[in-house]
């Protein structure tokens, strides 16, 4: 009996400690994406929910994150291709870029230099941003694809996998 209790206890501890469970908490496919309410470069608040009706990619990134920076040109291509497309689950495609930068000037300069024209928000709190906690982000880059109602379709897809997923919902 004691051994049984010990085994159960060990299993419990194991499941709590497992990082994979920590990463997926409440952010599963089919769950509603938590609201994000952050300022743009201009200072006005842009909410995630304001993009309802569209297929939306929430892209968590930072100018200091090399793979994120590399990915921005791929996102630009996706944005250009699908911005006005009709999907089975939304009209148009939008990217909601959430930067974990800490200095406004660095963030702003990057957006201008790379001509990034999709929605960009940041509270400039680096890893202390509450959104990093809400979305349980363990590392960058990280993204979440949501449908017209803000329901999670997929998480952390990049490159061809991401395009394939977006393409899946095209109204053909």
């Amino acid at each position, binding site marked *: 009996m004691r051994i049984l209790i010990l085994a159960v206890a060990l299993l419990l501890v194991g499941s709590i400690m497992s990082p994979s469970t920590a990463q997926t908490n409440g952010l599963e496919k089919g769950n509603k994406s938590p609201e994000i309410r952050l300022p743009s470069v201009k200072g006005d608040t842009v909410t995630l929910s304001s993009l309802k009706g569209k297929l939306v990619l929430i892209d968590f990134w*930072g100018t*200091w*994150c*090399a*793979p994120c920076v590399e990915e921005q040109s791929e996102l630009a291509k996706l944005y250009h291709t699908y911005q006005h497309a009709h999907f089975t689950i939304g009209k148009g495609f939008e990217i909601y870029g959430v930067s974990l*930068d*800490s*200095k406004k000037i660095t963030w702003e300069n990057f957006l201008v230099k790379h001509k990034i024209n999709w929605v960009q928000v940041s509270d400039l*709190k*680096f*890893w*202390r941003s509450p959104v*990093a*906690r809400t979305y349980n*982000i*363990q*590392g*960058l880059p990280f993204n979440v694809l949501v449908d017209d109602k803000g329901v999670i379709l997929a998480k952390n897809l990049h490159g061809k996998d991401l395009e394939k997923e977006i393409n899946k919902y095209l109204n053909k």
Partner: protein
Amino acid sequence: MKTKILTFLLVAFTTSMLVTNPLSSHGQSDPWTQQQLLAPAELAKVLNTPKSPQPIVFSIGMQAIIKGSVDIGPAMRADNLNTLKQKLNQLPKNSKIVVYCGCCPFSRCPNVRPAMALLKSMQFTNYKLLNLPQNIKVDWIDKGYPISE
């Protein structure tokens, strides 16, 4: 049978060499030793015990998140590295120093190498790199360790 055992040993040896290889993903050896990596729990304990001797903690990344740390800015930039050099010039070589960035894993961090190389070249004798394998959020903030206001 002998060949099988030999093959197994060879595979096991190669694998263990690959796993323990001290070379970074860039294929260059890092300017620090395993002994110079400081566990976050250890630093947190010291910071939470103000009566114990405190190290000088330099943030050489995006933001000075750790309580009491000195904000240098990303050490990948020459001007920031120079600021660090000037601060270090005022310290005795045996000062207890800790540096951290925490943007991303060491393999991808552009800041830890220049800072650690500088400390080495300036011949400091008691400096450590805070071991944040993932980032400052996962390995420090999420653990409830002391952060700046």
